[in-house]
């Protein structure tokens, strides 16, 4: 569909509806980030930004993070605002389809994880588990553009 972008992670090819995800995030960004009062901690960027990991396996990290957002983030981000909730579920659906493609690559050994990537993902999980679930999920959702910027 329009706005889909194909990413080539080595032998693994996945299509991500970046335009749809980006516009969905732009619509909720101010609302969601305003719910996150913690400036001093980042789930994705602590201690180092995703961009700084020069030898991260892009497929591995992308696979892990799409699982992370589907399994640990979107479901814990209910708000009292129906419009926001609809936008979140639309983003979640886009993530779901990409997650399945990445899962296939993983199962066919076309999405391998090196040590740095495994360590980075474990750090992300540790950052997430350092907060209560709702705060961690809301903070992660507010950082979606960090993932999208890194992907692009």
């Amino acid at each position, binding site marked *: 569909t329009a706005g889909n972008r194909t990413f080539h992670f080595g032998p693994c090819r996945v299509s991500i509806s970046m335009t749809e995800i980006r516009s969905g995030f*732009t619509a909720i*960004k101010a609302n969601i980030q305003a719910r996150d009062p913690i400036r001093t901690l980042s789930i994705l960027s602590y201690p180092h930004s995703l961009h*700084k990991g020069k030898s991260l396996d892009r497929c591995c990290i992308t696979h892990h993070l799409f699982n992370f957002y589907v399994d640990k983030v979107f479901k814990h981000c209910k708000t009292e605002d129906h419009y926001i909730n609809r936008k979140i579920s639309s983003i979640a659906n886009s993530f779901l389809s990409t997650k399945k493609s990445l899962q296939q690559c993983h199962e066919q050994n076309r999405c391998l994880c090196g040590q740095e990537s495994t360590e980075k993902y474990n750090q992300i999980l540790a950052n997430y588990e350092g907060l209560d679930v709702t705060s961690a999920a809301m903070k992660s959702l507010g950082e979606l553009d960090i993932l*999208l910027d890194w992907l*692009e």
Partner: protein
Amino acid sequence: SGQLYCSLPNPRNVHFESINMKNVLHWSAPESTGEGVLYKVKYSVYGVGKWIRKPECGNINRTWCDLSNETSDYEEQYYASVKAFLNGMCSEWVETTRFNPLTDTRIDPPIVSVSSTEKSISIILTAPEKWKRSPEEESVSLCQVYPGLQYNVSVLNKQTKKRWWFSISNNTLVVPRLEPGTVYCVSAQIHVTTPLLLSGFSKEHCIATLKDK
């Protein structure tokens, strides 16, 4: 002991205004405070623990502060904050929303240069450069920052008012099969698909095709 009372009204509308990643913090004076209000500014990198004062914007009476230098790493995101002072009183610190230089900047139109032959015009487009600290610093074009950067180009036959539209990824365009001795006007816009960024249209550049020999 010179204790400051933070009962002064807060600065308002504290926000970043960014063009080509020249990132300037702006705010409005607190309500009904009149002349003499001074301000302090601090900023922080999102996810990093500390606020950092901006000395050049300490005790200033203007209502803006250029934080381009401090926010030039567009792989990071930032907050900035302003506090007002007047007659021994102060306001609270008032923060911006989270600022992402990559998605929250505005892009200037491209620079357009045009040349012509009898039956065609050639257009060269140049994307603006990212803000840089000094003229000596190496220039970075925004098309390096945004790999998906494209140009929307409009070509107008000034006589017939017929207009063509083109959307191109590289920065040159040749429009063939035109009328000799006719004025054509070209205008262009930058379009980044994700994150979605759209510049204004450039000023029209008009040129006449050469006359038939």
